[in-house]
């Protein structure tokens, strides 16, 4: 019990004194997971919308793949991203293994199917005739897709929350492709794992609290927007 209380005390002291190392780790986590979420939003919304609006042979199979991808184990993603980025791997020439860029890449791979799946469901849940109504208003295909995405913006906020929540708390892939290098590729989750294994529970608890706070703040903000605009 003392261990926990001590940990919490230390945590708050690290947070309120703006400890340089903790601050650096926190900012890097936000940057990496934020960028990964942005990339996943760009790809996920495009692919999800395209699959929702088109009919092609094998579509069911593609939808099943996307749904399966929503639960991709981060360790497996970490493994394959590592293999791809390995010196002799297909993307080895990029020389980004054990860099924050590699973590962004791995986290984007984890978040993209989540965003794609939620977008697909959101667009499919719009009224069936809405697409025809938009075309009847004189819209081009591009305008039609843009208006549909705007109409689905509330469930898409859920996609942002799920995507960001999924990657900021993920550890397996980050540690495998980022290497947890101090001051360079160390993020909140990888640092927590390391400090716990060293027995530095106070620092680990501090990092854990920051991680939860970050996750809570981002989700609270998005929930606020979502609930304000929710149909009554």
């Amino acid at each position, binding site marked *: 019990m003392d261990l926990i209380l001590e940990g919490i005390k230390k945590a708050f002291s690290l947070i309120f004194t703006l400890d340089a190392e903790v601050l650096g780790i926190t900012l890097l986590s936000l940057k990496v997971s934020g960028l990964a979420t942005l990339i996943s939003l760009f790809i996920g919304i495009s692919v999800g919308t395209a699959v929702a609006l088109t009919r092609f042979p094998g579509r069911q199979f593609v939808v099943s793949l996307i749904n399966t991808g929503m639960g991709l184990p981060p360790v497996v993603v970490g493994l394959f991203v590592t293999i791809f980025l390995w010196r002799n791997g297909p993307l080895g020439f990029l020389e980004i293994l054990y860099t924050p860029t590699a973590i962004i890449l791995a986290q984007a791979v984890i978040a993209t199917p989540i965003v794609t799946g939620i977008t697909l469901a959101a667009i499919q849940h719009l009224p069936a*005739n809405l697409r025809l109504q938009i075309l*009847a208003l004189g819209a081009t295909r591009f305008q039609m897709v843009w208006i549909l995405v705007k109409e689905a913006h509330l469930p898409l906020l859920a996609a942002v929350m799920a995507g960001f929540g999924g990657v900021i708390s993920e550890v397996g892939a980050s540690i495998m492709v980022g290497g947890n290098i101090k001051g360079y590729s160390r993020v909140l989750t990888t640092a927590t794992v390391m400090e716990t294994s060293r027995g530095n529970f106070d620092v680990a608890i501090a990092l854990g609290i920051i991680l939860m706070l970050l996750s809570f703040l981002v989700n609270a903000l998005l929930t606020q927007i979502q609930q304000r*605009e929710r*149909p009554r």
Partner: protein
Amino acid sequence: MTPQDPSRILLCAEGLLIRRGGTPVLDISRLDVLNSEVLALIGPNGAGKSTLLLTLAGLLKPSGGRFLFGDRQITDPFAYRRRVAMVFQEPLLFDATVFDNVASGLKIRGMGSAEIKHTVLGTLDRFGIVHLDRRSARKLSGGEAQRTSLARAFVTKPEIIFLDEPFSALDPPTREGLIGDLEKILSETRTTAVIATHDQTEALRLADRMAVMNGGRIAQIGPVAEVMNHPADGFVASFVGVETVLAGRVVKVSDGVFTATIEGGQEIEAVGSVLPGALVLCCIRPEHITITTHSGHTKTSARNVFPGKIRKVTPLGLFHRIQVDCGFDLAAYVTGQSLDELSLEEGKEVTTSFKATAVHVIPRQSPPPM
């Protein structure tokens, strides 16, 4: 189908064919939409009204057929869609204010914001919803939402507006108000409109011509009164409210009046040019049948008088439907007041009468099914 004056034809569809799973769901040899007319498409669910409307609006590509808009063939559906508009059964409003919803078609066309404001406010005023301009579309009642949807369609000044059962989801008073306003706006703007409905009273109020659809085909098209009073076949007759359709054979013809024996051996007199021996369907609208309770005492000029017994009384709002067993079934409408005055109830003996001119005659090719 009577040929139309070519100069009045705004949209002409020829040889329209749509198949689903190999089965034709729409098969229209020719349909003309005339300039400034309101054409009602009526028919039961699944008759193909919505499919035809979507096809005419350029939203559904037929597997065969061609369209002429004015005197030009439509080759670019996108350009065509910018000249027409469509309103669906559900309002399908965007998650925005009433103003932004109505402005959407204009924004899509790239109109400037000052012009949009002027145009949208004018249209909102016309539809009686200018006070709702800043309200979120989510907070509208059903009637307000459908008004917004109609305003969104009219604001682009379409050359033809297609309306797919726009009132069917509304409660009767709201529907009544909206139909009245649409009637006024259509007549003021002289906008050509094609409206799909399964409610013949809507068609009667709004339409100049009526097309009755069945099984993806147009069973009859013509001026509303003509279709209502002279249905081309039994299906059209039953759909446009002719509740009594009797199959018979002409036994006597004299001076334009003929006598036909119907099922049960009774004789009906009607007006029409038919030959003795011809098979006919005699159609009688319920509002053309008179019911009296004093058999033989009431003088009537009606040639057809049949005593009978009331089989069923069904209240229909303003009217009551009286089904009388005269050896064959006759359906008549009476007001609530008449029902009370004549003490009409099930089992009561009454006399029914209708004029020879009230019988619409449809020639039949084959003997009536027994």
